[in-house]
């Protein structure tokens, strides 16, 4: 269960960012922003390797005391960043991968909508519902 989920465009501006409503949401925004550097580093680490060989799931970008940040990049350089709570030890890598896959599929569906212009913020309700399902349920 994620604490914050963000979709970042190729030019590194957010297309969609949603966090669990806590008092300090800006902290999550900041974390996502700093994680972009790590993402770029991981992307360019392969260097001359072909894009195909690069795996989409980037894995743990960096851990902090309270949170862990995971990253995922699509072939069009759209990045998904997910912040999860460190205390949630039951969350395994496979689950994170599946969450990213679901995100990717929903993102593709958003893209298929002809009324969506790439680069716009994502307002799709289906996407929202999917993200809500993934976030920690805070009553």
């Amino acid at each position, binding site marked *: 269960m994620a604490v914050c989920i963000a979709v970042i465009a190729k030019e590194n501006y957010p297309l969609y960012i949603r966090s669990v409503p806590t008092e300090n949401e800006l902290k999550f925004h900041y974390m996502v922003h700093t994680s972009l550097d790590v993402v770029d580093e991981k992307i360019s680490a392969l260097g001359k390797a072909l894009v195909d060989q690069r795996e989409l799931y980037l894995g743990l970008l960096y851990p902090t005391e309270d949170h862990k940040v995971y990253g995922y990049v699509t072939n069009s350089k759209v990045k998904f960043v997910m912040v999860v709570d460190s205390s949630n030890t039951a969350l395994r890598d496979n689950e994170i991968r599946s969450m990213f896959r679901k995100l990717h599929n929903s993102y*593709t*569906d958003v893209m*298929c*909508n*002809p*009324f*969506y212009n790439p680069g716009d913020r994502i*307002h*799709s*309700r*289906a996407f929202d519902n999917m993200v809500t399902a993934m976030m920690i349920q805070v009553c």
Partner: protein
Amino acid sequence: MEAAGGGGSGPPLLLSDAEQQCYSELFARCARTAAVGPALPSEPARALPSTVTAAAGPVADLFRASQLPAETLHLITELCGAKRVGYFGPTQFYVALKLIAAAQSGLPVRIESIKCESPLPRFMMSKNDGEVRLGTPAELHGTKAQIPYLTTDKNAFKRADDGDKQQETQSPTMSPLASPPSSPPHYQRVPLSHGYSKLRSSTEQMQPASYEARQSLAQTEGTSSGGPGAKPPRLQATLIRSFSVERDPHDSSSHYPDEPWRITEEQREYYINQFRSLQPDPSSFISGSVAKNFFTKSKLSIPELSYIWELSDADCDGALTLPEFCAAFHLIVARKNGYPLPEGLPPTLQPEYLQAAFPKSKWECALFDSYSESMSGSQQPRDSHWSEKTSVKDMADFSVSTQDVTLDDKQASINTTDDASPKDVSEDPATPKDSNSLKARPRSRSYSSTSIEEAMKRGEDPPTPPPRPQKTHSRASSLDLNKVFQPSVPAVKSGSLPQPPALPPRPCPSQSEQPAEAEVPPQSSRAPSQASESSPTKKDIPYSQPPSKPIRRKFKPENQTPENQELPPTVGGPASAPSMKLHPTVQKQSSKQKKAIQTAIRKNKEANAVLTRLNSELQQQLKEVHQERIALENQLEQLRPVTVL
């Protein structure tokens, strides 16, 4: 009354001003009606002087008008304490109203619900009671018109004026609504593209006409649609992402509860026509960009259109099939008329339902009838991958697996892996085949034939063995031997088959003899002169070659001249014989096959004779040439010792 906790029936009730107003009005009405009308036997004793009570009769009517299911209403009455207390005092009434509002908003009916900020409840009264509509002011989070179904009685234009007048008279009675009655027609006359203007005028008449239709139909459903006309201006003003409420009409005649989302026949016809104007083939897609341009003409906002697309494009492939298109169109129409957009695609608008609901034969007839019309007027290259999709579709069974085909097309064109959309099991397997055959024939005429269609054609003609045409085609592509060989397959097969392969070798011997002729002298000259030096042999070769060449050339004129009368016709014969043989064999039908064979045999024999003659003559010449060569070589040898020295 800020806190009506007098009844001791629960937590204090906090009402906003609008709610207060509405509730008190409703309560007054119910009480009034109770005073006027005959109260139920249980009631008269309850009319306590201290508190005005609302009689159960009108209250029950009111609750029923809220169009909640009976169980919910029971629950509400229990919760509000009326059952306990035995009457509907103001407290209970207000609690009940609040619970009704909550239930209509989709919240669970609980005591805690009354604490929540909920919109006003909505009640649909029958026309007899007068149209009472309680709507909300501009903030329209959950309250929209409860309209049972979007009837399109396009022909009932009768009481358009009356309807408007009624609308006018009722709107003042609506407490919070102050929208001027002139605005609905105003709104509805927003200029649109031709496709929509037609719809506009029809919906304009639709709404007042719907009063009529509903009045006639709605004895069980107390319906009215005063709302939609008045609503749109407000909706236009506020760009709303509105959430409609699940409406459960107490009309159990329909299988699905969402009546506004049911597409009627006229609507369906209209949608199909619109689809065809965009895309001539009714079973193919409309691409995203085309649909976007079309729907943008409806002047809805982009986010709303985006949401409508999200709802209607069930398989998320960026293209709309006919049922998806109908669903999207219907949603747009509903939205234009003021209905809020649903949370999810209503069951009556789902593609499977739409395909199953309307009989395929009707679809096909409608499509087939106008198919020829549309074909003439259609712009074919509108959709880039249109022809590919339709050619693939020819094979697919329309009803059962339109979605299968869409899957195939998707995989072909978009290369995305989609989840297998649920297949619609055709309810009438007979009609799809008919429709398929119906459609296949006109299609095969118009579309470029693909291999699939050819296979279909071949499959339809059992006697045609597929490889045969190819053989004959490879033989003589200009001639269509299909017609010749198709009907006569069993009879002629043995006889006619040998002919085509036999033909080509015939000219070759005549040609091959000549190069062989040219080669033989040099070889023969080489052979005797192998003992001698190589150079003389080389000299011999050119010497011998020119003799052979003129000999060859001689052959040709000899071929033509000595055998003037014979050879030209015969040389022309072998050359023309194949063609002649082909022509008669091609031109004759199965009945003339034997004649063809006989003539062919005759000609073969003639050609054979000619060639044998030619052969013998050539061999004679060969001998003569040999002799000359030998003589020449002898001379050379005689001369050589002289030169060496």
